[in-house]
């Protein structure tokens, strides 16, 4: 019964001992042991950078450059963190980044759900052509937009404002596409029934479609919040006032100023990473299942 679970496990080669419950059990142990060993080694490689970041961030300057490397600091200190808050204006960076990410994500998801619904559930002339024209912008690299959008931003007087960070990214193609896919799982009868009961179109969208799209919605909210939080190039180009920096740009600038104070830099990196990581671990079940759910298929 468990045989099919061993796909791609090189250690499970002997098919002779297929019969017998005890050999079955041994095969299971041996097969999965190999898997766990390899995945465990890989997992260590994945987390070492994070562990080393946290470890360094609690070390006084002299200890960061001592040999041999130590996982646990001899005299742990939080002075690096205090330094970051004092000198990098961390509170401000957190507030700016949160504010912009929340607003952008709300716009991204709302507009995408609306368009996904319209392109997925309505029949009107020109629907497909409009959809594919919008979708085609997906392939255009952001570098193509960088210069013209910057000049346009300066032209309308939005340089160095949050407006410039938010407005050009209100609509987004990826989430729209995902919502349109998701609409095929919602029965059209439901919408028709609501119409017959006299529900208005906006009421149907807000009270039926959005609640029914919860699964796709949560995943896309999480991903867009992460992407918006981690956005770098556009804020780097558009914002020059330090008080309006977002966290990525703030960290990059900070690293440039304190390039040889490794403890302080790692404290800064920790502070940039930890909020988003904590948020994600809290909702991770949704996300990992949601990638599958929203239909990422070749």
């Amino acid at each position, binding site marked *: 019964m468990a*045989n099919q679970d*061993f*796909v*791609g496990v090189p250690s499970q080669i002997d098919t002779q001992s*297929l019969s017998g419950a005890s050999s079955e059990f041994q095969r299971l142990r041996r097969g999965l042991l190999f*898997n766990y060993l390899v995945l465990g080694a*890989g997992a260590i490689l*994945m*987390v070492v*950078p994070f562990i*080393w*970041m946290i470890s360094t961030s609690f070390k006084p300057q002299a200890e960061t*450059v001592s040999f*041999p*490397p130590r996982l646990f600091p001899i005299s742990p200190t939080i002075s690096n963190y205090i330094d970051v808050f004092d000198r990098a204006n961390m509170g401000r960076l957190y507030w700016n980044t949160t504010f912009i990410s929340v607003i952008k994500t709300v716009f991204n998801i709302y507009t995408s759900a*609306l*368009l996904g619904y*319209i392109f997925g559930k309505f*029949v*009107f002339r020109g629907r497909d052509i409009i959809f594919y*024209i919008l979708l085609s912008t997906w*392939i255009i*690299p*952001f*570098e*193509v*937009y*960088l*210069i*013209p959008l*910057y*000049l346009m931003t300066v032209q309308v007087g939005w340089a160095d404002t949050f407006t410039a960070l938010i407005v050009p990214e*209100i609509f987004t193609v990826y989430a729209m596409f995902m919502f349109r896919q998701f609409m*095929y799982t919602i029965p059209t*009868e439901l919408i*028709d029934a609501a*119409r017959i009961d006299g529900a208005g*179109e906006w009421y149907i969208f807000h009270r039926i479609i959005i609640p029914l799209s919860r699964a796709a919605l949560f995943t896309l909210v999480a991903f867009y919040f*992460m992407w918006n*939080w*981690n956005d*770098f*190039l556009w804020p780097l*180009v558009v914002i020059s006032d330090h008080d309006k920096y977002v966290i*990525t740009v703030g960290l*990059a600038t900070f690293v440039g100023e304190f390039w040889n104070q*490794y403890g302080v830099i790692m404290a*800064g*990196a920790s502070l*940039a*990473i930890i909020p*988003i*990581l904590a948020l994600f671990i809290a909702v*991770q079940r949704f996300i*990992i299942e949601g*990638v*599958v759910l929203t239909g*990422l*298929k*070749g």
Partner: protein
Amino acid sequence: MIQTFVQRFTGNRSTLRAAEHRFIVIALIPTILFYAIVKFYPIFFSFFISMHEWSLFGNVSPFVGFDNYALLAKDSLFYKVMWNTMYRTFAGTFLGAFCSLIVALILNPIKRGSILLRLIYFLPVMTSVIASATIWKWMLQTRFGLLNQLLSVVGIQPVPWLQSTTWAMPSIIVMGIWGGIGFTVIIYLAGLKGIPRDYYEAAEIDGASSIQLALKITLPLLKPVVSFVLITGVIGGFSGGFQAIYMMTGGGPLDSTRVLALHIYDYAFQRMFMGQASSMSFVLFAIVLILTLVQFKLQRVDWEL
């Protein structure tokens, strides 16, 4: 279902049409305006800029026709940048796809702890590249970095990872694989879920070994997913790499990690050659467009799923 079908063909819904129509129009007008202004106009504007000697300062931007493109064709630095971009793109994509495939294949049969393992592999995906590049730069530091300190234990002399023209690009590629593996693994796992179990059961009854199962069933059936990962990886790779390289090497040493995205940014916003930078962004656009068309040809993407 039958009811909807009948309604659709008898025009029973015509009384509702006006409200629906208004709904669609109200939603689509701002959308189309947005896309026209923010997504389509800038492309033409960018092309217009690439036809000029455009500088942010100074009010004169003389028209130069295709001179910017001609300059690129003669610029040895640009060829170097293109080579670096392709090196990073192809090495990163293929190695990354391979590592993720191995992880996905051995992660797939696991039940206990699989969520924790997926989460661990996914951690770098959630981390901003700016932050991870900061950590990696510190770990790869020549004298005090963790990697060289560990290597010295086994007697290997310190390697100046990010200051060496040989090692800087591989270092950035490895960091990129570390950063992206979790996402690709999840795509593969979704693909593996789609393979019917009966195939394996039938093959096992015929006495197939697990290696045979992997080579004869899993890989062929996973081929569309693998090629999806490779093609999107290559397309994304041409315009990618900016954040990691900006933070770790700034394009150096001796331009050995200068990739297209960084080069465009550098020309446009550091050296203020916006016309020249726009012409480069159009070369990038052309490459991505061609690759996408090739993808459509090779692999009829099933948009409807």
